[in-house]
């Protein structure tokens, strides 16, 4: 694994039991390498294995066969505590439905990631405000999630994921619940963070709007990689 390499998947297979001793194979021998600073996307239709692959990379799940090496650690060999530590320090998640904690304010939602890292209160305040500034939400710090729009909610989720400056951001259909304007805004923010912080972004999406921003598109079909290509993002988007 090179120093630039963030993750390496080696013949990853994932099977789910469907009863009667039968299994559904969601991933069929995936081989993939992602380097630091990439802005890549897993694309494909529903059921192609995008989210399953993202979950394995995020150490929320483990492969049935093969090896998934993330930040030099084999996901299959990690204990619960070690995989929690991996997520806590190295991985940021962005979900389709934002998954903000409803009883917390915007500030507290973003702060939560740092509390888990035992960051001091003064440092937390500084970094949360910085993260909110990146996504342009410093004015909404005291609002609860139910008082902000969907686009703002997803920007809070980005701030929450990026505040701990993870090595890799995993975004599962981040624009699926957003209108075109908000989707573009979200993608522009993430691209900016990718460029400024050199954070690796890996999306799962079938949204054309997202694909236009990607520098690498990995197409999944029926659990296998059908195509893996480097692309040049449309200049107008930059």
């Amino acid at each position: 694994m090179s120093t630039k390499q963030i993750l390496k998947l080696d013949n990853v297979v994932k099977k789910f039991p469907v009863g009667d001793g039968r299994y559904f194979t969601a991933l069929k021998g995936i081989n993939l390498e992602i380097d630091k600073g990439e802005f890549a996307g897993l694309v494909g239709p529903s059921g192609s294995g995008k989210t399953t692959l993202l979950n394995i990379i995020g150490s929320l799940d483990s492969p049935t066969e093969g090896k998934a090496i993330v930040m030099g650690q084999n996901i299959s060999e990690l204990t619960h505590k070690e995989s929690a530590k991996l997520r806590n320090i190295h991985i940021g998640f962005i979900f389709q439905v934002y998954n903000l904690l409803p009883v917390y304010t915007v500030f507290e939602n973003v702060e939560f990631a740092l509390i888990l890292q035992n960051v001091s209160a003064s440092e937390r305040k500084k970094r949360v405000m910085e993260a909110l500034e990146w996504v342009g939400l410093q004015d909404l710090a005291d609002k609860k999630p139910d008082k902000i729009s969907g686009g703002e909610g997803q920007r809070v989720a980005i701030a929450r994921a990026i505040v701990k400056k993870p090595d890799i951001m995993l975004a599962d259909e981040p624009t699926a619940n957003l209108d075109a304007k908000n989707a573009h805004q979200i993608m522009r923010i993430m691209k900016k963070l990718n460029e400024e912080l050199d954070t690796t972004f890996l999306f799962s999406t079938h949204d054309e709007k997202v694909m236009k921003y990607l520098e690498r598109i990995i197409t999944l079909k029926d659990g296998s990689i059908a195509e893996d290509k480097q692309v040049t993002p449309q200049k107008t988007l930059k």
Partner: protein
Amino acid sequence: MKLAFQIAYKNLIGSGLRTWLNVIVLSFVFVVIIFFNGLIDGWNQQSLQESIKWEYANGYLLNNDYDPNDAFTIADGHGHLPDSDTKNLTPVLIRQATIYPQGRLKSVLLKGIPAGQETIALPTASLDSSHANIPVLIGKRMAETAKLKEGDQVLMRWRDKNGTFDAADVTVHRIFDTSVASMDNGQIWMPVERLWELTGLHGQATLYIADSDFQTENFDGWNFESQDELLQDFRDLIEMKKVSGNFMYIILLFIALIAIFDTQVLSIFRRQKEIGTYVAMGMTRMQVLRLFTVEGAMYSVFGVVLGMAYGIPLFIVLSRMGITLPEFYQDMGVNLPRTIYPVFGVELIVLTVLALIISATLVSLIPARKIARMDPVMALKGKIQ
């Protein structure tokens, strides 16, 4: 652990009504448990004091032939001590008699006691001022059941020492009020000197009441029962009350704990995306377990705080003003003061707080374990059934 407290506190405060409903139920349970325990402790203390004051003083010297629990021993259960031995002892002669208030027959215990005695609180001194032929004292309960009032005369029949029936009118000189039912129900008190005359049992006593200066000695034919021994039955009754009360507390606690358990179990379904998010953000299983256990325990802490907020002023008022029981409680046959002053000790409060917090923590642990073992992928999808 600090993290669990921090997050649990925010989660509970942020949950609004759901939290407060549980907290209100728990605070109610907390207050009710302390209230009833305080009431029983107050009753216990008061009744013991009243029993000592009105009935037992420092103990009884009982004639060996007399068994307080066997009415058939009254006829022969008497004797006398030499005058030199009766220092600090008040004689009580007990006989069986029958009265006929409004033509009805009523069996009574006729008790003679020196009018000048000060060993027990029975107001016998007033008997000296009576000009009636046979002045008697009766208690309020006896007066009510026999429908007698002060100044009334009622025909009484008794046997003398030879077993011969005799009868005369007795005059109710005074009706006394005591919470000690065994000094009142079915009893008539008269000067022992008069009873000696009526029965021919001069100088005889069924028992002697010892005052505080009495030194225990061996008296042939007599058995001394100390204050502690005499109060043992009452203490046993209180213990029994406490045990039966504990069942009620357990039921109340159970209801409150079910509310916490229900809330925590519902969290498995209602908050699964939140739990999945915690895990995705890097919380360990142990941290999730601690968080949900602390959340459950915190309900009880909030319940205690709320319970104290309205319970302590209530307890202070009740312990000062007391709780006056309805009249019909006086007919229950147990020593029940008309007004009970509950006693709320620190030990009682501390033990109740601990019981509540520990049981809430244990109850929360069960669903919290399940929550901590959730599959984060399924939780994030909200697919846990």
